[in-house]
């Protein structure tokens, strides 16, 4: 069977990379005896499918992983067992059983929301919001292997608000288009001519491709 788990990554483990988080799940599963299914072949691997990688240093309350099991279990049991062997900072929040043909989490997510804490005056923040709302192009230079190219990242930003010394921002996050929140914010601030110091980034929600249904707290639906 296939179970989708939602988990939080706290401050304690925000420097653990995507790949290392994968290893962490593998080992935790073995510690609690979770009957994870393995791939066939010469070098069998446990079947986990993770969502969009979370950048290093970012915390989150909406990370997803699809786990394939050899035995049927109720989702509550799975995440309770896992939570008993997880290090501080990693908490499974909920889980639900998926039908066998459900699409992988990787292919489903298209946007995500972040809270980016900053040191900035209210006036400056207003300038940034105004620039965002003006809808004017936001061109940055993207470096890939051996060439640089200019891209307008404005269409990849879908919402921006400021309150409590933090920007709430929604950007593309998926297989086809992906924009890191700090890249978006730094570009906006630069164009608006204000200084910014980012003191923390936290991912709060993911959105589905098709319906742009909210994927955050609540049911993980």
């Amino acid at each position: 069977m296939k179970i989708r788990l939602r988990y939080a990554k706290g401050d304690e483990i925000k420097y653990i990379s995507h790949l290392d988080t994968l290893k962490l799940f593998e080992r935790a599963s073995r510690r609690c005896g979770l009957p994870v299914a393995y791939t066939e072949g010469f070098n069998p691997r446990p079947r986990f499918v993770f969502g969009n990688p979370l950048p290093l240093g970012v915390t989150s309350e909406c990370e997803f992983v699809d786990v394939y099991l050899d035995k049927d279990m109720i989702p509550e049991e799975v995440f309770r067992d896992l939570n008993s062997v997880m290090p501080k900072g990693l908490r499974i929040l909920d889980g639900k059983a998926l039908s066998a043909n459900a699409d992988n989490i990787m292919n489903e997510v298209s946007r995500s929301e972040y809270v980016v804490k900053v040191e900035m005056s209210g006036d400056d923040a207003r300038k940034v919001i105004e620039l965002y709302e003006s809808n004017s192009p936001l061109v940055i230079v993207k470096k890939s292997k051996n060439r640089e190219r200019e891209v307008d990242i404005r269409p990849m930003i879908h919402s921006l608000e400021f309150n409590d010394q933090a920007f709430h921002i929604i950007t593309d996050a998926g297989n086809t288009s992906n924009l890191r929140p700090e890249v978006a914010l730094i570009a906006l601030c630069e164009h608006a001519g204000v200084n910014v110091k980012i003191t923390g980034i936290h991912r709060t929600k993911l959105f589905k491709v098709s319906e742009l249904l909210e994927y955050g707290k609540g049911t993980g639906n």
Partner: protein
Amino acid sequence: MTYINDEILAQVEKPARYTGGEWNSVVKDKNAVDIRFAFCFADVYDIGMSHLGYKLIYHLLNDREDTWCERVLAPWPDLEEKMRENNLCLFGLESQEPIKDFDFIGFTLQYEMSYTNVVNMLDLARVPVFSKDRKDGDPFVIAGGPSANNTEVLADYIDIFSIGEGEEMLHELMDVYKEWKKSKGDRIDFLKMAARIDGIYVPCFYEVEYNEDGTVKTHKVKEEYKDYAKEKVVKRVVKDFENAYFHDKLVVPYVNVVHDRIMIEIFRGCTRGCRFCQAGFIYRPVRERSVGKITEIANKLVESTGYEEVSLLSLSTSDYSSLGSLCDELLVNIEEKKVNLGVPSLRVDSFSLELMERVSRVRKSGLTFAPEAGTQRLRDVINKGITEEDILKSSEIAFRGGWNNIKLYFMLGLPTETDEDILGIADMAHKIIDVYEKVHKGRRARRPEITVSVSTFVPKPFTPFQWCAQISKEEIIRRQNLLKKALNRKINFSWHDPETSIIEAALSRGDRRVGRVIYNVWKNGGRFDAWEEYMNYDRWIAAFREEGLDITFYTERERDLDEVLPWDHVSVGVTKNFLKKELEKAKRGETTPNCMEKCTGCGAAIYKGGICVDEN
């Protein structure tokens, strides 16, 4: 909260090296313990967290309710720079607090090239780097591990050395410390109490005099410490290895480290007695663990860590008395949990190839042989009990079994080596290619991948070659080139810059004066000297010169058999007399049987344990 803030962590490589919190790491209430112990490994996290001994002692100390042991690893230069800029000091991974107020700062000394990092870590901790400058309230700096057997090079930095295996000795030391703390004695009082424990050496209780030619004249206990310190410090061993402490937990790092798996010592020591190998002498006598015990340890560790691999650890796995049944038993226990078994350092023969196929999903590449020398004559000199016939036969079995990749390890500069011995290396490699062609005759086979890898011989204390000279840098290069030219181009050749081996040789057999050189190198920026990209040979050479010492005195000089060696006050069980006899036999090209065949009376029987009592 991490001690290093996010702003800095975001700018350094692999920040998770510094944030702690790994599964099975131990966090205690600092107000509920009597002893805080900062356990240092003088290299980066990825290396330190790969050492079994480091993790073993960590858990051993933490199993004491009265002690909180924390891990402290050398910050990589990118972080060190930020720490110095921001006036930060060295901290423990568990508490994320500075270690300068801890009771102990302990180092495990695994290799001499880490000594500049020892000094650097003390300095970063804001603890006086020299023992003589530490005052009441400063931590006690202690050191153990294989390199600690030559105590002298770091004698000015370390308050207390523990010689040999720490499992029992450290408990005694902690108990004595608590007694001392209760008595509210002075710093020196604790050193006196510690010095009375077997295996403990307190360097400041000894004085050294030198002869005019620079050799040691005397190394003796100062008059006023006669009641506390011993003239001869005898290495400690755990006599009953079967029932010795083992940790049923193990810290599981988040980030990739070099050896990221469960490692289980199946036996300690080695019976072989290769004359160049320090480990072969300092860990005597050989003591085995039973199949049942090893299986029990493996099961507990798999359960507590979730690791996907268990690896057997020893100096020579093939010498384990019942390797076949051990592997069978382990596989039965761990296979269903999808855990792999790693069986490294096997001698290659049909038994081991069959075993390898059975136990692990290794790709059919990468078999290693360590003949160490190119001719039978020289292999007899070093007592490496392996013949050309053995190697060719094993290669044939391997090639027939589908392997095509063989790596051969050799040493250049072994005592009595001639050009003929070097050409013998090439000869052996060529014969292996012939074997490959014979095996695959008439068929279109993959090209064989034969690699010859050479290192430079470093004479080590407590070996029969402790009196021998190392060859000069020019001579090493000449011999490397000689070999390179002699090798068929089908063979891959890999060799090391001789510079690290030369510095390592000087530090391995150094005396107290060499400690000044380490300080000089460190002052001039020396860090991570075990890393080729950081080691600076010229800086070392300049430091020797500035301190008025001739490096060749330590490297290229053959010692007189009657000379007082800087480490003579330490006994590892194996007697100096035995080593002398071994050296003489080496010069005559005579071999010595291993302990399994016959006891040759090396001296380690004083421990009344392991093979000395089992078999003989």
